[in-house]
């Protein structure tokens, strides 16, 4: 019997390790020969742990599997009460366009043979036959923009580093995925680590960098472990080292672990942290592309940006660019989170409306109550009410509605949610995580909490003060932490004024 049980953090947090052990024990007890693969997650988190069994050459899914469900997996087959049918045909999977996540959930994450058999290294092989400018041109032409949230064109960043003259250059992968509602970086690293490694090697070829770092947050122990093992395997097989795949190019990767500072997801504070310093934001210019790690030209890219490069190089810039809308080209792995009936990862071309994502893909709330709002883009993203659900998913489209898509995490909340409380939390979080370098963020966030508390106590005169404070933070902060915290605060205030007035009535 060939079976798959995910090693993904979400599956493990829901009991996948115990389920895998129970399947192994049950197979031994029955004398059934078992091939058990620990795969990445398919992204259907509401079905985790999702066990797959190969039946007549097709992978059938069963989930969510508890220990009590395990014996019947051996007896009932397709009639099992948790059977969902062929996984690839499930509406959640069939509706997606998986480019970045093409292999995640399908392959054994640490098997190079499996990686190769599913299109791995096609991009790198092609890149090895090209010059630096050719690779940069393909990435630029693909329209790929920074998936970490800022949306800066990846190819232009690479060109700056490629053109810079220096004795050393670096590729830094930002895997400090600290935004609530985002887990795509984690899933990619756990489910297809060689894809990230391949993307980083290509970035090295394109820019002349020979050293890469993956800076992973400490809250991701499984991703750290998988990436460390994948780098060792890649080194042992000549993918990394002095001669990448036998070529004249050298590239080495080191895995670094963060230490619980949210602000280190900001690229300049990440670089300071990598250098062994406090994670304090640097003023720009100089751009990291010219003076980054140790003052050398450095590409800082998000996990998803780098992991998307292999398929662009394999299939061509035009293939990728043909997906999407406007200036948002290609696909985006949506992360449906919070109070969602169907939560998980859904990769699709840009352009779906927010309402389609919330009502049709997420299926509304898990609690069955009306969706009150959706926070798009993590803790620094705006809350969208139903009246804005016609907004198409794209960088400019969301900016036009005073929001952002960020890393494409979506937190659904139901109608019992107090938006004043959420606004207060945004300020509180900013105060806890501020690096302290600039005043609007460091002091503004503390004053923000106090001001919202005044509003909660019925002091309506504090409302204009809050708006004013947000304007100061937005335009006066050095980085997105202080600069974007006003997004959740002001959107809550703008779209849900009743939540800010209700307390006043209570006080009177």
């Amino acid at each position: 019997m060939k079976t798959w049980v995910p090693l993904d953090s979400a599956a493990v947090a829901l009991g996948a390790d115990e389920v895998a052990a129970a399947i192994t024990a049950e197979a031994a007890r029955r004398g059934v020969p078992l091939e058990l693969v620990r795969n990445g997650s398919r992204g259907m988190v509401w079905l985790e742990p999702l066990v797959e069994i190969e039946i007549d050459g097709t992978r059938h899914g069963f989930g969510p599997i508890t220990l009590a469900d395990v014996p019947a997996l051996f007896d009932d087959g397709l009639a099992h009460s948790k059977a969902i049918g062929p996984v690839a045909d499930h509406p959640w999977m069939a509706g997606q366009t998986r480019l970045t996540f093409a292999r995640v959930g399908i392959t054994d994450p640490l098997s190079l043979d499996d990686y190769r058999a599913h299109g791995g290294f096609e991009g790198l092989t092609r890149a090895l036959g090209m010059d630096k400018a050719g690779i940069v041109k393909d990435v630029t032409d693909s329209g790929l923009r920074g998936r970490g949230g800022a949306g800066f064109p990846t190819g232009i960043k690479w060109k700056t580093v490629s053109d810079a003259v220096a004795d050393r250059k670096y590729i830094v992968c930002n895997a400090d995925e600290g935004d609530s509602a985002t887990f795509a970086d984690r899933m990619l690293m756990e489910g297809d680590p060689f894809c990230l490694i391949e993307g980083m090697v290509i970035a090295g070829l394109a820019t002349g960098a020979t050293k890469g770092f993956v800076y992973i947050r400490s809250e991701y122990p499984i991703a750290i472990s998988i990436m460390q093992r994948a780098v060792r395997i890649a080194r042992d097989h000549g993918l990394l080292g002095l001669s990448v795949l036998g070529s004249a190019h050298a590239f080495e990767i080191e895995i670094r672990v963060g230490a619980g500072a949210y602000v280190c997801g900001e690229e300049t504070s990440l670089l300071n942290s990598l250098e062994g310093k406090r994670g304090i934001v640097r003023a720009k210019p100089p751009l990291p592309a010219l003076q980054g790690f140790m003052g050398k030209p450095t590409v800082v890219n998000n996990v998803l940006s780098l992991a998307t490069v292999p398929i662009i190089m394999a299939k061509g810039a035009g293939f990728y660019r043909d997906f999407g809308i406007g200036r948002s080209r290609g696909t985006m792995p949506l992360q449906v989170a919070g109070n969602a009936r169907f939560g998980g990862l859904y990769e699709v071309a840009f352009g779906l409306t927010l309402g389609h994502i919330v009502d049709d893909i997420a299926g509304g709330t898990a609690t069955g109550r009306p969706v009150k709002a959706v926070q798009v883009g993590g803790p620094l993203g705006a809350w969208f009410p139903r009246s804005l659900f016609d907004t198409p998913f794209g960088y400019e489209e969301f900016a036009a509605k005073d929001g952002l898509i960020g890393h494409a995490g979506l937190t659904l909340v139901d109608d019992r949610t107090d938006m004043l409380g959420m606004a207060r939390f945004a300020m509180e979080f900013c105060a806890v995580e501020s690096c302290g370098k600039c005043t609007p963020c460091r002091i503004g966030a503390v004053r923000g909490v106090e001001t919202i508390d005044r509003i909660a106590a019925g002091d309506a005169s504090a409302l204009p003060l809050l708006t004013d404070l947000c304007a100061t933070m937005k335009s006066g902060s050095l980085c997105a932490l202080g600069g974007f915290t006003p997004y959740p605060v002001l959107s809550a205030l703008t779209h849900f004024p009743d939540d800010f007035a209700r307390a006043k009535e209570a006080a009177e």
Partner: protein
Amino acid sequence: MSATQSLGAAEAETLHAILASHRGVEGALLPILHDVQAAFGHVPPEALPIIAADQVISLAEAHGVMSFYHDFRAEPAGRRVLKLCRAEACQAMGADALADHARARTGLDWHETSADGAITLEPVFCLGLCACGPAAMVDGKLLGRLDAAKLDTILEGRA
């Protein structure tokens, strides 16, 4: 050196082995602090001057780095460490009520360790388990779809 003596010979040897293993590493301070904490359970204050000297930075700089990051502890944690996610996606699934329950049950507020050293309560802002909240990490083990009953089972050591 008195600081080395107060560490104890075995501890000093461990520390120097950690420092030696990071020779030539670019920006080694965070990897060193992680290894020291893994070895000792915290970063002993008496280790910091030795680390600073090794990295050719002042004690103030070393302290500045260590205290900047939430992960590094100057004192040992409890025998069990309960980290509850407080971020938005988990809040949407009732993390606030779960946190209130945990605080009431343990009698601890955030960052506190019980007097008998049994348990430490920490907030965490996102474990990347945002589609299966509320989430937690207990003694390094990830947990999703947590509720008060499951949490009690864990706190009582029954799971």
